[in-house]
């Protein structure tokens, strides 16, 4: 997004000479940053900070047998 703004400014500066207008620039979704944010939150929620497996407390549910 910041990149987009910078690009826009650069185009404006050049605009005086080249008569290229600043077209609306879409702000793309920052997928990599979102992934990083998701991972940080998942670490927090699952308590994975030390790489430890999340501790399953016994809430009275019997771990059923798996297929």
């Amino acid at each position, binding site marked *: 997004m*910041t990149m987009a703004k910078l690009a826009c400014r650069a185009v404006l500066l050049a605009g005086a000479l080249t008569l290229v207008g600043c077209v609306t620039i879409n*702000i793309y*979704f*920052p*997928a*990599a*940053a*979102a*992934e*990083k*944010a*998701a*991972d*940080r*939150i*998942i670490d*927090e*929620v*699952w*308590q*994975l900070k030390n790489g430890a*497996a*999340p*501790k*399953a*407390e*016994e*809430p*009275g*549910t*019997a*771990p*059923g047998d*798996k*297929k």
Partner: protein
Amino acid sequence: MRTAIFFTAALAALASLLPAPALGQANLEINTPAIAALQRSMQQRHSQLASLYNSGAVGFTRDGNVALRDAKAVPLAQRQQVNALIASENQDRAALYREIARANGHPEWENDIRATFAQRWISRAQRGWYYQNASGAWVRK
């Protein structure tokens, strides 16, 4: 005769407060009170959900939620409670995705955030946990 005492003291207030570290451009803002509150709430719930993930009763859906996969892995008397747990977890997740989008000034990103999370929950899930693949079928990791 009175003596006038005139004194101006300049005290340096707020001098040593640290300025906040500049935010990295590449990060999304996730340190807001709302996100923190949701995170706490989900963290508290996780100990209960983890054993349901382990037993295969609950799995991860492709839209960033959790869902009941096999009620039979849960004793009868607790199935209702598991349903309530799933409902609250999904409510928190929806609020979390929305809050992250809003905290970054782009409410319209909500669905992208949800999609990102959907994929991260699944790829960070432990071996043995279940998730829905692209066609909606349950797969064991």
